C-alpha cells in the first residue's frame, strides 16, 4: 500500500499516468514490445520502405492530442488495394494505437485522427497490401507534456 502511494505521487508529479512505471523498464524491453506487437499484426517487424506516408507534427506540445495523417500510395481497386494500416507508438505503455481495415470503397487509402503520446518517441505506421506485401514508415515526435493520463 505504501509502495502504491509512492508511485502514484510520482505519477502525479510527472503528470504522465502509467508512464512513470514504464520509464523504469529498460529500453530493450520496450523495443521488443513494439516489435512483438508488429509481428503479431503484420507478421514481420521489418516492413519495406516506401508507399506509406505518416504526417505528424515534429513537436507536440500536448501529448494528449497529437494529430496524424496517413496516406498510402495505392489505386484502391479490387485487385490492388490496402487491406489494413496499423499505427504503433513505440514509447507508450502499450504500443498499439489503432488499426484501419480498408476497402476499395474508400477510393483512396488515407485516414486522419489524433493520438496520445506519453513522451518523445517514434511512431510507426505499417500498411498491409492486398498482394501480401508490407510497407512501413517511422517518424519521431517530440512531446512536451505527455498524454498517457495524469
Amino acid at each position, binding site marked *: *500500500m505504501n509502495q*502504491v*502511494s509512492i*508511485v*502514484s505521487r510520482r*505519477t502525479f508529479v510527472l503528470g504522465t*499516468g*502509467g*508512464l512513470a512505471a514504464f520509464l523504469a523498464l529498460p529500453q530493450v524491453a520496450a523495443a521488443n514490445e513494439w516489435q512483438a506487437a508488429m509481428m503479431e499484426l503484420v507478421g514481420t517487424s521489418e516492413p519495406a520502405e516506401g508507399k506509406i506516408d505518416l504526417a505528424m507534427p515534429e513537436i507536440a506540445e500536448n501529448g*494528449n*492530442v*497529437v494529430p496524424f495523417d496517413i496516406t498510402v500510395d495505392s489505386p*484502391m481497386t479490387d485487385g490492388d488495394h490496402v487491406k489494413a494500416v496499423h499505427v504503433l*507508438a513505440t514509447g*507508450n*505503455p*502499450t504500443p*498499439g*494505437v*489503432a*488499426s*484501419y*481495415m*480498408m*476497402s*476499395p*470503397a*474508400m*477510393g*483512396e487509402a*488515407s*485516414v*486522419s*485522427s*489524433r*493520438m*496520445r*503520446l506519453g513522451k518523445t518517441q517514434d511512431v510507426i505506421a505499417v500498411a498491409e497490401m492486398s498482394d501480401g506485401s508490407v510497407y512501413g514508415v517511422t517518424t519521431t515526435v517530440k512531446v512536451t507534456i505527455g*498524454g*498517457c*493520463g*495524469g
Partner: protein
Amino acid sequence: MAAKPRVKAPKKAEAGEIVTIKTLVRHHMETGQRKDKDGNKIPRDIIHTFVCTVNGKEALRSKWEGAVSANPYLAFPLKIMETSEVVFSWTDDQGETVSTTKTITVA
C-alpha cells in the same frame, strides 16, 4: 455512452467522386493506465471499434486502443458510385453502440 456523434459528409456527389468524411464522437477514452487519488486503477473504457458501411457493405473498420485521443476524430475518403446510405457506428467497452446515418445523393 455518448452524445450524438457528429459526421460531416457532402449531401451530393458525382458518380465516382471521392469525398472526404469527417467524424467526431464524444467519449472520455479512459485508458486503464491512470490511477485515482487512492492509487486504484481506473478501469479502461474506450471506444474499441468504429465501422463505416456504404449501402450495407463495409467500407472501413477501425480498431482503437487506449492511445486514441479522447473525443475521437477520424477523417477518411469514400468513393461514391451511386446514391449511398452511409452508416457510422462506434462501440465502447460498456458494450454500447451509437450510430448515425448520412445519405449522399448522386444526381
